[in-house]
């Protein structure tokens, strides 16, 4: 059991983090105080064309030197600083959160059509698998993940998320069940501009991990959720699937439902299941994924985890609980429950 919530403003109007903090806290009982986190898009307008790396350092000595050496090998650090934090009585600051604004040197990845993204992906995977005491947990442009072990309010206040303003926010309250609670295991999980919050278990993790690792991604966070970020990156950024079909690949209809579909629809769904069989996720889950221009929420195809959505003026909300949405937007009228496995998509139009 975990609690998730996400919001997008289609005109990119900025929201500070104070309301999503309160909404997540409405779902305190969905967590255990061992992991909470937030991601916001649009928070670094002064560095909007640079990759914002958020890292946890165990110490500022060796790991930091190694990370900076690696970053300088692949590009240039334009600015870096400790992420401001405000210590909370109930939390132990076991890592030092640090951020870099990084410009990749695309000449080092000439053969690629997306050299910047490929360099960043490679650097993130290398740091997380080879440099002890350093962990990259956020690596997108003009966005940042803020997460730690603690309750929703504690983690929000630790990072002072009310000081950040974004047009997309996701938040997550963790109840760890299969791996222990630690800062890196808190959600959201992020790679490039992909961020994921997830309630449930992906029981097909082994299959999905083998599949995604065959494309060069490396799973290093001891939890199933990170594969969702990598799968979305592979399916949407690399294979150019539209969001709704990417979700179809991850949570496809049953074969007996496909058998009953009409010609073209049947052919499409059959092809998706055959090609992306190893990307299909089994188990109970409700997930929200964000990209710089959209969010998408979906549950597993037999709906073993809760998911509700609502719209109000320019905003789409998706959450585990209606009360959390109403905490963010008390005037909301239009609340609905998405069909199992069917994506709810919100996009910016400006």
């Amino acid at each position, binding site marked *: 059991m975990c609690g998730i919530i996400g919001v997008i403003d289609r005109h990119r109007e900025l929201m500070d983090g104070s309301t999503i903090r309160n909404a997540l806290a409405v779902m305190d009982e969905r967590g255990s105080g061992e992991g909470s986190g937030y991601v916001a898009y649009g928070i670094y307008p002064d560095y909007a064309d640079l990759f914002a790396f958020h890292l946890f350092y165990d110490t500022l000595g060796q790991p930091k030197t190694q990370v900076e050496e690696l970053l300088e090998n692949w590009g240039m650090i334009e600015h870096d600083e400790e992420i401001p934090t405000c210590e909370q009585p109930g939390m132990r600051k076991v890592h030092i959160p640090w951020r870099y604004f990084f410009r990749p040197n695309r000449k080092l990845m000439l053969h690629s059509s997306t050299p910047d993204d490929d360099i960043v992906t490679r650097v993130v995977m290398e740091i997380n698998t080879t440099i002890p005491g350093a962990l990259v947990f956020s690596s997108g442009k003009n966005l940042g993940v803020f997460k730690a072990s603690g309750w929703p309010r504690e983690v929000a206040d630790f990072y002072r998320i009310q000081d950040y303003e974004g047009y997309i926010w996701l938040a997550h309250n963790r109840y760890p069940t299969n791996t222990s609670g630690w800062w890196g295991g808190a959600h959201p999980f992020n790679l490039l501009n992909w961020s994921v919050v997830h309630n449930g278990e992906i029981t097909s993790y082994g299959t999905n991990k083998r599949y995604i690792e065959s494309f060069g991604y490396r799973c290093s966070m001891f939890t199933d959720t990170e594969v969702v970020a990598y799968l979305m990156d592979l399916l949407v950024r690399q294979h150019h699937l539209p969001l709704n079909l990417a979700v179809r690949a991850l949570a496809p209809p049953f074969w007996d439902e496909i058998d*009953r579909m009409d010609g073209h629809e049947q052919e499409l769904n059959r092809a998706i299941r055959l090609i992306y069989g190893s990307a299909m996720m089994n188990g109970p889950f409700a997930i929200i994924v964000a990209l710089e221009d959209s969010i998408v929420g979906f549950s597993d195809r*037999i*709906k073993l985890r809760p998911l509700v959505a609502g719209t109000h003026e320019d905003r789409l909300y998706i959450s585990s609980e*209606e009360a959390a949405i109403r905490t963010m937007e008390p005037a909301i009228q239009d609340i609905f*429950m998405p069909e199992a496995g069917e994506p709810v998509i919100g996009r910016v139009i400006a």
Partner: protein
Amino acid sequence: MAITKIQAEGIHYTRLNQMIRKAAGSGAEEIILEGVMGQRFIADGLTGSVQITIHGVPGGDLGMFMRGPTCVVYGNAEHAPGNTMDDGRIIIHGSSGDATAHSMRGGEIYVRDDIGYRGGIHMKQYQDKRPVLIIGQEARAFLGEYMAGGIILLLRRGRNDSFSQRGIGSGIHGGLIMIRGRVDEWYLGVGARKHEASKDDMDLVIPYIREFCNLFSEDPSSYLSSVFTCIRPASARPFVNKYTWE
């Protein structure tokens, strides 16, 4: 009538339930909760005949193990209202989430609009204890999953198409699901069979239809003149060879 009002905004469910119990214990006949926002477990394990009127969105497991009181919700309820409820009533002027009436074993739940997935999962009955879940509009897949007893009545207000959510009564081994209109065989779950409602079946549920319409100020005539489909276990012991061998 002795009425107690409680402003619930920002109050944790533990404290809120203490306040409810205290009011009920000192003789309140109605307790009005204002500004409820996601507090779980409201009225859980409560006994007696008090009415709890809830304005807002009660959190999960409303009225769990409740025995006797009535909860009236003006708003939507989250997951599993009436979880293992023993007696009493839950009346929702709105919709409710997944697993509504989860493991319910007595009493009545009236939902004006929709319920989520797995409504009435594991409902059961024993002697004169026969729980009833009545839904005005729509239900999602796996309605009456693993059902062992009681009645689920789906009225499908305003709909004339056949009900098309998969897995109806999947694993059912007791009880009755009644759906207004037709149901395609394909949507039945494992171990479920369907037949058109007989006069006896209708006689069983007509009092609940009338009460539903009375509670939500609706005209029952269109429901009473409709054809209903009954879904029941395929046999007395549909899973006799599934988990054990004799």
